[in-house]
């Protein structure tokens, strides 16, 4: 079975294509990256964008129109990786606000986060920033209405029933519940990013 693409032009040099699931978006992005004409390919949670030189727009449109994606799963069979998290306090400045928004005690919020199996659905934002599924649907927390200009590296946030982990310091709009001391990005390592799409995770309170 193959998937037909319906590209939507969202800028003069960018097409966006819908994907049903984050994993499908990752698969589609990998397939599109193989094409040299494309300047950049970025996967979101529900779509993939390609950036192209406008001089090649007709060729790109023809190629996308004829593109067919064959299914192949990228979920890792490896054992889950445990991430140690210090919840609340200065490490999680929005912890109390989230407890209130979800009507949960601090213990119940931590239990909700640590009892589940999680999976990295996407790496994006800044290098190594992981979007992680696994939270129950009731954990729907909106993003901050004013993003912070600086979030410390290792910060753990939740938003819209996803967990997000910031590998690097930088601006960020996710409400923060805690922080991990583990190294998430090492530019000199063979694999600079600790977290990869498909990686299974467990969270542990420390």
């Amino acid at each position, binding site marked *: 079975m193959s998937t037909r693409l319906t590209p939507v032009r969202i*800028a*003069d040099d960018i097409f*966006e294509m819908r994907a049903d699931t984050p994993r499908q978006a990752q698969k589609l992005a990998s397939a599109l990256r193989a094409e040299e004409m494309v300047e950049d390919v970025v996967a979101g949670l529900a779509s993939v964008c390609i950036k192209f030189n406008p001089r090649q727009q007709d060729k790109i449109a023809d190629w996308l129109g004829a593109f067919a994606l064959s299914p192949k799963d990228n979920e890792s069979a490896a054992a889950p990786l445990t991430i140690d998290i210090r919840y609340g306090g200065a490490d999680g400045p929005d912890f109390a606000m989230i407890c209130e928004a979800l009507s949960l005690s601090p213990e119940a919020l931590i239990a909700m986060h640590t009892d589940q199996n999680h999976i990295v659905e996407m790496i994006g934002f800044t*290098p190594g920033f992981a979007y992680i599924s696994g939270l129950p649907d009731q954990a729907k927390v909106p*993003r901050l209405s004013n993003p912070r200009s600086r979030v410390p590296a290792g910060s753990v946030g939740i938003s819209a029933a996803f967990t997000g982990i910031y590998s690097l310091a*930088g601006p960020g709009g996710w409400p923060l519940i805690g922080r991990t001391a583990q190294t998430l990005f090492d530019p000199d390592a063979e694999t600079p990013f600790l977290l990869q799409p498909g990686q299974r995770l467990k969270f542990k309170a420390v």
Partner: protein
Amino acid sequence: MPYSGPADPLSMALANRLVGNAISSTCLEITYGGFEAEIEAACSIALAGADGGARVSGRDASFHRTLHLQPGDTLSLTPPVNGARSYLAIHSGFQAAEQFRSTSTYLPAGIGGHEGRALRMGDVLRSIEAGLFASTLETPETLRPVMTHQFALRACESAETKLLNPEGQRILFSETFTIGRQATRMGLALTGHELGLDSDGMMKSAPVFPGTIQCPPSGVPIVLSCDAQTTGGYPRIAGVARCDRHLLGQIRPGDQVRLLRRTPDAAVEDYQRKQSYFADWLDRGF
């Protein structure tokens, strides 16, 4: 990985052109001037971008011209009043750490460039090859970008433009915005008009690019620049067209910005027109 690279690729290309380099050879990007260097070996350099004045060993030196420097010379840049970033190119390019197939310094990750960080007093920089460039060139007058405090940026509607209410859409493409205090390589806030948005803040994170304009629930749009994240969860209400993205690197806090609405096809024509305007001088584009 984010794009990183120069915030104003046109000015960097113009600087490289004057010392015989490929347009993307490694340059220094100097933000808000205030730069001094001692020259230890003869070299050919060129300056482009925001021009607050340059001096070589105390004498005025010009932007947009090849400068041949001798050991013992000093080079200094005065902070510019218009524009934010100046580009210093050296014949053969600067030596720099290459990571992820780029020598750009990406500060949020501390990679590339010179030890992955901004330059500090006492740093020693080297060109890839020793020696002077055999020619002395000047950028043609008509091709020198004029630095200003007022920008008109051509822009296209994006995936979530329709989440703005009709008044928000009207304001976005017709009113003048003031750039907020934070104007960085990550992004620039468009302040002065809060846009009404029909969004619950629950959008699924979607791809964003340099030039994408996001609108958080606060209603204050943010234009993403070269160090922008690769995905974002705020509605993408517009995108600065490719032809004008190089200008994002020269916008300062307090500058005035207007967005001129273009269809994608019209924006492509604008891009091709701008590229052909520079084509005789920058034969590989910018």
